[in-house]
Structure formats: structure tokens, C-alpha cells
């Protein structure tokens, strides 16, 4: 059987983690290709619905990462983001959504190694947990079957 290759999407801020991931590249540190990055100006910009959309569209895991506390390029965006994540994690967990599939992290522009670690550890963890079948089952794409079957 082919090994499960999780789809992981990373939502990162431009100033710290994106730059940190650049440094990972510049330093030629290797990490798993499963993770693909979407750039945001700040973690403060990352709407919780973005995370929900990721699961809906087939993500098995999500990384959300930005500047360490006190390092935000916009001084406080990450603090606001952190509050939202605290609440969101509570809600998602209570609603039965597997929050262990979401890795939140602070990775600075200087932490090229840390970025590689975060990625590799998340990939390993998601491989362990397996594909997010539960979410996949309710996704809109299940309505699509090219056979035109009726519903309900």
C-alpha cells in the first residue's frame, strides 16, 4: 500500500515565519514537501474561516505560524491572533474537530531550523493520525460524483 502523504497547508505571516522559511531555504535545510505555504501580512489577518476552508478542501493538517510575542511587525497582531486561537481551539475541540491537526507556532525570521522542525514534526504527527476522513465525508466535494446521482 502506498504511504499516506498528508496534505498540509501553512498559513504564515510575512515578516517572521515566511522569512524564517526563506532562511530554511537559504540554509538548504531539508523538509517534507507535503507542506505548502500561504502568505499573510500578519497572523492577525488569519481569519478562523480560513482554517475551516482548509479542512473542507482536503487538508489533513494545518500549520499556523507567526512572529514570537513582542516581535510582531505590527507590534500586536500576533497577540490578537493568539487570543483568537485560544478561543477557536476551544470551540473546534468542543465541536468535535480534531485540533491536534492544527499546529500553532511562533517561528522568527532567524529560526530556519525551527521551521524545518515544525514542518517535519507536523508531517510526522499527521501521518500518525492519518487522513482526515471524517471531515472529508461531509465536504461539499462529496456532492460531486459525475454520475448525476440524486440526493436525499
Amino acid at each position, binding site marked *: 500500500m502506498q504511504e499516506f502523504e498528508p496534505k498540509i497547508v501553512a498559513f504564515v505571516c510575512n515578516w517572521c515565519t515566511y522569512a524564517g522559511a526563506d532562511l530554511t531555504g537559504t540554509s538548504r535545510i531539508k523538509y517534507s514537501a507535503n507542506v505548502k505555504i500561504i502568505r499573510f501580512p500578519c497572523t492577525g489577518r488569519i481569519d478562523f474561516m480560513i482554517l475551516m476552508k482548509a479542512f473542507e478542501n482536503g487538508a489533513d493538517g494545518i500549520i499556523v505560524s507567526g512572529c514570537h510575542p513582542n516581535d510582531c511587525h505590527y507590534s500586536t497582531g500576533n497577540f490578537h491572533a493568539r487570543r483568537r486561537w485560544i478561543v477557536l481551539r476551544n470551540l473546534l475541540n468542543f465541536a468535535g474537530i480534531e485540533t491536534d491537526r492544527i499546529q500553532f507556532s511562533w517561528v522568527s525570521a532567524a529560526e530556519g531550523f525551527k521551521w524545518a522542525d515544525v514542518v517535519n514534526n507536523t508531517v510526522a504527527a499527521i501521518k500518525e493520525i492519518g487522513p482526515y476522513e471524517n471531515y472529508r465525508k461531509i465536504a*461539499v466535494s462529496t456532492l460531486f*460524483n459525475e454520475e448525476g446521482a440524486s440526493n436525499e
Partner: protein
Amino acid sequence: MEKELKILKYSDLPKMIEKFISQGYPVLAPVHKGKIVEIEYVQSLDSIALDVLLSTQSAKKAAFPKVEKVLEYTMNKAGVVQHPVDPADSKETILFGVRPCDASGFKSLDAIFGEGPSDQFYLSKKEKTTIISFSCPVADEYCFCTSVGGGPGNTAGSDLQFTSVSKDELLVEILTEKGKKASRIFADLLTEANSAIDKTKFIADVKVVFDLDSVVAKTTASFGNAELWLEQSLRCIGCGACAFVCPTCACFDFQDEQDTKKGVRLRLWDSCGFSLFTLHTSGHNPREVQSQRWRQRIMHKFAYMPEQLKVVGCEGCGRCSRACPVDMNIKEHLTAIREQVTV
């Protein structure tokens, strides 16, 4: 066709359901779901809620589901490729254990979806649905079927109607060819009934509270009576609960759900009670305030439908009143129109 009367033993009901299922007819019937009663596919009589007055939602979803796929498509550089959904691709189904008001509600839907360019998605499902209704032995304060031309033993819209005539026996009225066909599946369980049996003795007595013609006439005349509609709807909060439980509300919306490569087109229930229902792209809303939306709801059912489709868009089931979070009781509102409006 001429109505036929038969007798079925209560004790044979499980066998009847088994026969339907074993012969490949899915059975939709009311089912207890916590405090509410849903209409769902069942596998045996056990799960069917025959003891309830009415299911929370009407039976309309048998032919008009809340989400219905009408098209699939794929997209590529060259353009869009359509994969139509065949409206006829549905199974013959038994809708069992619903009330006369549910069954007659389909008459309104037939009129709406059958008018003009006929709606094959609805019609083919409806065509393949055999409706077995149960007459009502009891009614509650929300019921007013007799005021809108129906009744607890009304057979309009039903293919078969069952009436409890004793502790052990059900009177089976075979009303249509579809009903006849369905009855053949369990013909061995039926015995002849006494043709003199008086069904009305076994059904609820629902008082007529208003004269329908008068309500229709007065509603028709009240479009400009803003004060009336405002007064009636002041506590309306503009949700769609009434429309979504209603057996005759047929408004719908189309939505495409797609990703970068493929999509589906869905037909979804909609409600004239929503402010978005009439909102234009420009920002203009011809029904700007809730009273205008309430007016639309009442007028659609009691003025426009009688005028255009020759049916009243209400079965008097009272579901909207039961479901309303703020206790808007349609029976009261219609009575008020009857009493307050002078033509």
C-alpha cells in the same frame, strides 16, 4: 378511479412495511428525533412515529428536498463541461404515515411546479411517490385545516388513506391508481370493508374559524394596508422557520458550489421572510422592512395563489405557528384580517 375500501389489521402493519422494503420501495415516514419528529427513510415500523399529531417539518421534502443537486460541471481551459443530473433518476418511494394536510399540501406544490415550464425535478419525484396518509384522530389549538378547505379526514392528495376504526383495525381507502398499485403489494393483508362505515366518527372535530372566501377577498384587498401588516408583524424577527416547515412554501434559490475545477449547482429552500430574499445587487430592496415580507407571505398564500393557480397556499396544518420562535399564530392573523379588514 372509484374509491375502494379495505380493512387492515394494525398487527399487519409491520408486514406491510417489510413488503414495501423487500420489493424495493424505500419508505419515508415520521420518526422521533429527540423532541422533534423528522420525516426519514425507515427500515421497519418500529421507528415510525404514528403517535404524533404532526411531524415538525412537512412531508414536502419527499419531492422538494432542502438541498437538491440539479447540475454538475467541470471546468478547464477550454470552458465548462456540463454533466446534467437526470430528474427522473429517483426511486419509487412510499411516503407513509403523514397527515391529510401533508398530502393535500402536494396539491399546492403540484400547481406551483407544474405551472408554466414544468419543474421536472419536483414532478418526477412527486410522480414516483405514493402517499399513504393517516387521518387525524386528534387535533390541537394550532390546527385549522377545516377553515382552508381541508379536514382531518381529507383525502385530497393521498393515494391511500388509513383511518383507525378500532383498536385493532385500520380502514384503508384506496384513492388513486398509484394507491391501487401500492395496495397490491400488501393485498394479502387486506380484507373487505363494510361500505357503510362512517369514517367521520373516527376522526377529530376541527372547528371552522373563518370563512376562507372572505379571508381571500380581504387579503387580496389589503396590499396597501401598511398599518395592518406592520401591526401583525411587529414581533416577527425575520427568520425562515415558518417557510421551511410549511407544506406548501416552494420558494427556492440556486447556488453553485465549486472549486477551481468542478462544481455542482444546488437548489435550496428559500424564504420570503428573509431580508436578502429580494435584495438587489444595487442595494435596493423592494421589500425593505419585515412588515412587507410578512405581507408577501400572507398575500402569496391567500391572494396570489388563489388568483393565479386557483389553490390556496395553506393547508391549515399550523406548523408555522408551532415553529415560530415568537409565537406568530397564522390562525390568529387570518382571523384578524377577516375581522379587521372591510372590503
